[in-house]
């Protein structure tokens, strides 16, 4: 029992560290990537001066995220004169916390056997014994459903923020956020249904494990190979859920100042921004888990590689765990970077275009995809 507690405490610490780090790093990635895409240099002025010296560490602008955080914390926490106190204070947390919670069911690695990992330290190895843990904070059978349950809570936060701050721009932003996020939530759910049909489970660890197989003798059995349309639609809908360009209507600067968080300042506003950047990473993690084989390289599983030609490469447990952690982070970073690429490429939709895109374009495609998948699964009797 104590062993479980230690392992899961370590997981929670790791997940929090990864998410907060990604939230900070992605602000820098966004600035730099936008700059490089536009033939510019990008943010590179914030520095840390070593005490008592004139040595200024710039580190290609990495400290801009820290400078942002510091600024947000030191700013005046301005509150509008007429507002609902409780809802106003709670809204940033209602947006921020579910984003972190979603990561609780995402497996960020394969299986972990601490007893084998600490084989050089007999006392610890003996204490852990033969226990095996999945690299996942909460092993839930309904993992995918939990993702959608928590993802849906974010809408409430956005609407609370818009309603409680007693501002017309905020209210408009909140209305837009509500209709947009509910529309795209539907699309997102439908895209994932196809995967559930194919894998026959909503448990994310099981989904990842099934993706380490081989299709047609040479293709890795990743979700993106099985469900290419669903992958594109899922990413689109997830980006719309995250309210970033081209779907940033709830906070369209040129129309609504900042949308539903117009009346927020200091760290409360920072929480909204931070939640947005962390959600980029969470979406990337979900996409990796569902469509890109989770923490595995192609043809890789918890024991090593089994290449299509029947070649088996066995790896020691420590190497596999380290490789899986690194591969997962690399995939997340890659998908996050792709989301930023989209954000800096496409212009914002008009509001009617946005809803038409969801209901008249994505929704029918999703349904068609689902029907085709269901028929195919029925004909093939499942892929297992």
């Amino acid at each position, binding site marked *: 029992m104590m062993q479980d507690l230690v392992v899961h405490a370590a997981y929670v610490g790791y997940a929090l560290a990864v998410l907060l780090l990604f939230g900070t790093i992605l602000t820098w990635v966004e600035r730099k990537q936008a700059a*490089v*895409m536009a*033939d510019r240099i990008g943010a590179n002025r914030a520095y840390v001066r070593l005490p008592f010296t004139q040595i200024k560490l710039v580190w290609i602008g990495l400290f801009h995220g820290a400078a942002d955080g510091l600024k947000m914390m030191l700013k005046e926490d301005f509150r509008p004169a007429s507002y609902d106190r409780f809802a106003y204070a709670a809204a940033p947390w209602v947006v921020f916390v579910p984003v972190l919670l979603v990561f609780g069911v995402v497996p960020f690695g394969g299986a972990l056997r601490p007893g084998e990992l600490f084989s050089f330290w007999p006392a610890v190895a003996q204490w852990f014994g033969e226990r095996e843990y999945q690299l996942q904070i909460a092993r839930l059978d309904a993992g995918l459903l939990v993702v959608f349950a928590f993802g849906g809570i974010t809408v409430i936060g956005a609407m609370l923020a818009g309603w409680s701050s007693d501002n017309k721009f905020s209210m408009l932003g909140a209305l837009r956020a509500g209709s947009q996020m509910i529309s795209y939530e539907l699309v997102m759910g439908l895209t994932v249904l196809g995967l559930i049909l194919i894998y026959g489970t909503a448990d994310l660890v099981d989904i990842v494990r099934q993706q380490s197989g081989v299709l047609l003798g040479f293709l890795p059995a990743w979700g993106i190979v099985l469900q290419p349309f669903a992958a594109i639609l899922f990413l689109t809908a997830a980006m719309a859920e995250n309210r970033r360009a081209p779907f940033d209507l709830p906070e369209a600067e040129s129309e609504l100042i900042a949308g539903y968080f117009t009346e927020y300042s200091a760290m409360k506003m920072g929480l909204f921004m931070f939640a947005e950047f962390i959600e980029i990473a969470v979406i990337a993690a979900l996409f990796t888990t569902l469509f890109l084989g989770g923490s595995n390289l192609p043809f890789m599983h918890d024991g090593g590689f089994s290449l299509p030609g029947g070649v088996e490469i066995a790896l020691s447990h420590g190497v596999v765990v380290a490789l899986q952690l690194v591969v997962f982070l690399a995939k997340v970073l890659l998908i996050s970077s792709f989301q930023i690429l989209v954000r800096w490429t*496409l212009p914002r939709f008009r509001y009617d275009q946005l809803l038409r*895109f969801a209901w008249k*374009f994505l929704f029918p495609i999703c349904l068609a995809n689902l029907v085709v998948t269901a028929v195919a699964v029925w004909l093939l009797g499942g892929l297992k």
Partner: protein
Amino acid sequence: MKRPVVERRVRRTYWNEPAMSAWESVYLLEVVRGLSITGGVFLRNMWKWCTGRKGAVTAYYPEEIRPDYARGNRGRHVLTRRPDGSPQCVACNMCATVCPAKVIEIEAAHDPSDPAHPKSPARFEIDYSRCVFCGLCVEACPEDAIRMVKEVPGFPGPDRGVMWSGKDELLNWQPASDVAKPYPARPAGGPAAGAAAEVTRP
């Protein structure tokens, strides 16, 4: 049941109606094209940065100053000199008067030994933190004493105090005086006549 007649609204067509091809009206294909363009630029620039070249067209001012300012660019001010090296400025304050940002401060000095130019600036200072680089001072000057060169003042700093440019800095201009400009000879008998006569002009 009779359905109410709904008048169909016909959208007016304009002469400059944007014509979308079938390819363009399928939104996702154009999205892919746009992403490949921006992604391509990103990869090209990243490859340049990674191979030690500069992947941006912007300059890292003020550490890096572009060499290609236009010939007529209104950059920093310079004060021209007479052939004997004294500033051509007669401290008439015309530039300071015309300056819309009120950035020029001149303190005049009296030089009884030079009857042709008894007034000269003892102090001539420009506050670049407020200068708008309009060039009116250059136009107002009756003596062609103040000019603007294409190089910009390298002034961005942590403190407004360092953004002032003084007489020494303004006079520090090569070639110091416009050699094409004919200078009248000094009136004979003056104390500085000898010095002026020594100057030969091309």
